């Protein structure tokens, strides 16, 4: 068509590069943007629905733990085995189930809700916007979930028959934070990878891998987050002497790491979290999501 302008050759273009970014490099801008997202998400979080969910997250496991504790006969309350059982129960209910499910609900749909809510485009057209959004919402999810876990632990521990309540409280609280970080990163990655039925996929993953594989007496259980968290629990709560630790059935079946301290497992959990999060951050900028109707 005669009206078209003549295409200019790229070689004819000069000065095509833009001026230096006045707002700093990639990492600096990301670090500047993430607090903005956290602040925004937190301000949105203090709404009746979220507070109600938070209260449910606290009340149900707390009520369950205290009601079970009241069923224990008085003579068994100081028993080593009872201590271990209640430590395990507290661990299973709080860092394992509560934290995992809460992170599943909060971290899995980070991308999906943005696409569904037609707001993905706004972060997409901002440099590091997607990463800032993912990181910001991840940290808010971690904050809410670990807070809920620590509150449940803090309320429940005084009512439970535990020989070392303070140590148990500290360990379980730490496990809540570690579990939030690790499961949050895992579910955020699943949310970045899958655009449809992300909650179902996350739930199936949690059930099959963290629920079943983690309890198989095989090397494969070492690939799960639950294995690492459980190992910290066994080292720091209930089985604090090496004799008790080595003689435990779970330890003998290879379902708990035999490191002399729990610190190695903490490093493992943090490394897994950082690795999963790094992959999610890389993918979220790379994947071309189907949101064409948005534009």
């Amino acid at each position, binding site marked *: *068509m*005669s*009206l*078209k*302008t*003549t*295409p*200019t050759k*790229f070689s004819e*273009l*000069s*000065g*095509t*590069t*833009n*001026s230096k*970014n006045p*707002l*700093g490099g*990639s990492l*600096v*801008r990301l670090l*500047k*943007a993430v*607090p*903005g*997202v956290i*602040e*925004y998400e937190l*301000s*949105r979080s203090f*709404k009746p629905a979220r507070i109600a969910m938070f209260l449910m997250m606290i009340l149900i496991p707390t009520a369950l733990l205290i009601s079970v504790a009241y069923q224990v006969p008085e003579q068994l309350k100081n028993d080593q085995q009872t201590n271990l059982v209640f430590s395990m129960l507290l661990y299973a209910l709080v860092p394992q189930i509560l934290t995992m499910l809460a992170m599943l609900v909060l971290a899995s749909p980070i991308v999906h809700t943005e696409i569904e*809510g*037609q*707001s993905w*485009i*706004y*972060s*997409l*057209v*901002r*440099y*590091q*916007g997607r990463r*800032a*959004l993912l990181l910001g919402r991840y940290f808010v999810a971690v904050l809410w979930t670990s807070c809920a876990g620590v509150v449940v632990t803090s309320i429940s521990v005084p009512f439970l028959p535990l020989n070392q309540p303070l140590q148990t409280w500290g360990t379980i609280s730490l496990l809540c934070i570690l579990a939030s970080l690790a499961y949050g990163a895992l579910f955020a990655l699943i949310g970045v990878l899958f655009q449809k039925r992300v909650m179902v996929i996350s739930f199936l993953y949690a059930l099959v891998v963290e629920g079943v594989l983690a309890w198989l007496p095989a090397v494969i259980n070492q690939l799960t987050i639950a294995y690492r968290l459980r190992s910290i629990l066994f080292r720091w709560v209930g089985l604090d002497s090496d004799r008790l630790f080595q003689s435990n059935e779970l330890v003998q079946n290879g379902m708990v790491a035999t490191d002399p301290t729990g610190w190695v497992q903490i490093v493992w959990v943090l490394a897994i979290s950082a690795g999963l999060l790094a992959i999610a951050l890389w993918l979220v900028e790379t994947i*071309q999501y189907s*949101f*064409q*109707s*948005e*534009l």
Partner: protein
Amino acid sequence: MPTGESREFSKSKWKGSCNQFMENLFDFQSLSLMYGTVVGVNDLQLSLPKGAYALIGPNGAGKSTLIGLITGSLRPTLGSLSVLGENPRRSSTFQQRIGVCPATELLVHGVTSKQWLVLLIRMCGWSKRLANQRADEVLEQVGLADARNQCIHTYSLGMRQRCKLAQAIAHEPELLILDEPFNGLDPIGRHQMGDLLIDWAKSGKSLLLASHVLHEVERITDSFLLIFGGRLLASGTTGELRRLLADLPQDIIIQSETTDRLASLLAEKPWIRALHRDKQANRLVLTVDSPMKLYDALANWASSGTVSIKRISGSDGDISTLFKLLISRHRGERAYRNTGAHS
């Protein structure tokens, strides 16, 4: 009808601005995007200097896909593109140079426009203090200063559109991209939005406006890109497009008291493709290959008293008619059947 000078002028104007800034707004090299077997954008080859452009096309024409490519949210299947001299998907500085106002409804709940704007400005790497300051400024600019602490979901459609525009211009981009900004707006809202965009274009910054509301677009810019089926049908200024319109085959209705004489004269002309005489209404319905030649001939015959002409109806040269003509030509139809012509 525009003269040849206007066509040349616009070309030299575009060329001149190329040389002046040494950086084109868009450079598309065989740009194509496929959704599986469906063509989204088909072999676009275009270079445009900085300026304000309207991207015109019906639904499904490929406007949004092209915007997706321009913003870097979509990856071309074939070819390459450069926007403001940068590759949208590879440049680390590109996103801060563009502002995008999407067509979709703004569905943000429980958040005030200021909170939302501050978030989006901070996402660009601005500090909290500057983001707050800038959010206030830009809300003032779009006329939402009084409603800044009101939740977005309580806004009217027009206010939400202005809020979308505010986020697009908040980080002071060089290029503003708007997809159907007039959607759902009442006449006052349309006028206000038009004024805002006119101001933007006058400020010397670049603008790409995708719309099918043609008269509002004509108010804002006189440079058009007509797109259909993922292909660029035409591009140019209003003057150039009107000239193109005059060169395209179209239907013309002539009311005359001398229809017999006029019909016999016209029947001899090679550029008359079809001629229908409606004796009772005293009118001729013509399909003309070259309307400019017809107008010349009619002027000659009328001035010499050979025929008398009461009224000529036909394509009035507006962009809507042109677009229909171009689509018609794109589809391979020989002449556009002018149903909506007015005198």
